[in-house]
């Protein structure tokens, strides 16, 4: 298989998070009763006219900006003509010739190297109605008809399924953080098509491409691409030529299957949409849209790193936007971010996962979190103490001092008392002492653990560590 070089291009459709549809004032929503969010425009009734939602333009400008695209200031819409029950007008309104964004890129990191995945264009279009296929019939729900979409078209510069997955993950993160879309692939608010072709040498022209449509998850994009590479390689090995085709990924078969092809290319007979005049985007609109963008993931990461957070923790925090937004509330305080992220990703995340809650659904006010971080930082609270009181701390309005008192948490800082315990443990564990003296640093962790056990987790760990090391080094 390695004798062929894959060339992969990806098209991503993303539903925009606006209140209403692109060309009508119907609600843009998911999960409502079928055919309950429509009006005559969405249903394509004769004589109705589209009116363009300004928030669609604003949101698309944001998308173009975060994906490093140039923004076109004068554009028009086109009709893409086809007969299919998902679109009773018999055309979809799209931007075929004047995409709002072009020449952009998304940066991914693969094998510790940065790579730019180039973006050919971003264009705005309307979504079609949703059709579900049941045996001999298809069921149509027009709630989705007219939901605003942007289609993001990458250049065919992706070389492996791993790159494809990283690109999509980055794209999803950027669009989600920018409030452009909620990017839920399981609900169809982000949908991917992949174009795959193979060639023997990099100097050869591109091979015959096949398009895989509507892949439902990022991991399935990876599987679909590798299956398609396998399929094409086999055909090429056997010396067979094949035609361009459209396939779809079937997650039950875990493979791609051939679809009957609809119209393609010229068959769509694009022409300018005469019902919508030129759309002019002013500099003022662009500036306003861009300045309303929240802080993006890369910017957040940089800030966290500058506050002493580890690379691993910074990446993990950004993977959970609620936690990242919460942490950002402390940017203008002198909170210890290292301790704060450890707490957020450790016990607090554990609690949130168990309770299926988000951090803003707890009683952890800004003041309470500052207090908690401070006490952990000063070693007034051990990690065991935190575990003991955290649930109550997150669920009630009790202060930390109240809980410490209530739970009888004593933090032993009495040096003579601790020295006694340390001596006892050293005496009981001669092997570990020898190990430490022979240079095995890990032995100290074991001894620390024994001391904490002996004191039921109430010893001040910083103090114990100091006493233990001085004793061992004697």
């Amino acid at each position, binding site marked *: 298989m390695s004798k062929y070089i894959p060339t992969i291009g990806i098209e991503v459709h993303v539903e925009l998070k*606006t*209140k*209403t549809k692109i060309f*009508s*004032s*119907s*609600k843009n929503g998911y999960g409502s*009763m*079928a*055919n*309950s*969010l*429509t*009006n*005559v425009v969405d*249903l394509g009734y004769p004589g109705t006219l589209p*009116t*363009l*939602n*300004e*928030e*669609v*333009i604003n949101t698309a400008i944001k998308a173009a900006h975060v994906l490093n695209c140039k923004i076109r200031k004068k554009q*028009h819409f086109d009709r893409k003509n086809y*007969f*299919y*029950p*998902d679109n009773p007008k018999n055309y979809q309104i799209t931007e075929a010739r004047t995409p709002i964004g072009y020449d952009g890129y998304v940066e991914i990191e693969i094998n510790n190297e940065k790579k730019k995945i180039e973006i050919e264009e971003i264009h705005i279009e309307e979504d079609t109605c949703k*059709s*579900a*296929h*049941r*045996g*001999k*019939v*298809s*069921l*149509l*729900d*027009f709630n989705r008809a007219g939901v605003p979409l942007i289609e993001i078209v990458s250049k065919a510069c992706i070389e492996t399924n791993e790159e494809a997955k990283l690109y999509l993950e980055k794209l999803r993160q950027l669009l989600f953080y920018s409030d452009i879309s909620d990017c839920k692939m399981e609900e169809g608010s982000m949908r991917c098509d992949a174009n795959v072709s193979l060639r023997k040498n990099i100097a050869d022209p591109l091979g015959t491409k096949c398009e895989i449509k509507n892949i439902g998850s990022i991991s399935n994009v990876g599987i679909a691409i590798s299956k398609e590479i396998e399929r094409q390689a086999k055909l090429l090995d056997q010396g067979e030529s094949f035609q361009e085709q459209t396939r779809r990924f079937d997650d039950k078969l875990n493979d791609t*299957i*051939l*679809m*009957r092809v609809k*119209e393609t290319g010229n*068959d769509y*007979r694009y022409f*300018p*949409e*005469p*019902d*919508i*005049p*030129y*759309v*002019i985007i002013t500099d003022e609109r662009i500036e306003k849209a861009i300045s309303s963008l929240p802080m993006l993931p890369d910017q957040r990461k940089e800030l966290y790193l500058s506050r002493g957070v580890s690379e691993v923790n910074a990446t993990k925090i950004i993977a959970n936007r609620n936690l990242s937004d919460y942490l950002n509330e402390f940017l203008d305080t002198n909170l210890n971010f290292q301790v704060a992220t450890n707490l957020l990703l450790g016990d607090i995340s554990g609690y949130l996962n168990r309770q299926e809650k988000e951090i803003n659904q707890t009683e952890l006010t800004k003041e309470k979190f500052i207090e908690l971080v401070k006490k952990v930082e000063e070693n007034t609270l051990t990690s065991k103490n935190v575990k003991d009181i955290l649930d109550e701390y997150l669920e009630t309005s009790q202060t930390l001092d109240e809980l410490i008192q209530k739970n009888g948490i004593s933090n032993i800082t009495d040096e003579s008392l601790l020295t006694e315990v340390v001596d006892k443990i050293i005496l009981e564990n001669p092997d570990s002492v020898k190990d430490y003296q022979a240079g095995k640093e890990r032995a100290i962790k074991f001894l620390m653990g024994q001391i904490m056990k002996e004191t039921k987790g109430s010893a001040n760990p910083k103090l114990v560590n100091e006493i233990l090391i001085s004793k061992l080094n004697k």
Partner: protein
Amino acid sequence: MKDALTKEEVLHVAELARIEISEEELQMYQVKLKTLLNQIEEVTKINDHDSDYLIAPWQEDAILRSDTEGEMLNSKDVLMNAPRKSGNYIEVPVVITNE
């Protein structure tokens, strides 16, 4: 035939329009459609810069609508015009097949 489309071309256009045509109509359209295309070609000679062509029958730029919800149709009314329905869905013959 220089002044006519091929039969295949006409049949392809008919297929895209989802219409059936007779042999007689086929021959007629081979000539008529070609005539039409020739006339369009004349028009394209007039103006070859396509960045500013007329797209709408008036000159003003698009006026954008604010993103506020308006009235919607009752789903019962929506389904009234559907030839077949299933629950709250509009039912049509299956539109996707795997070959």
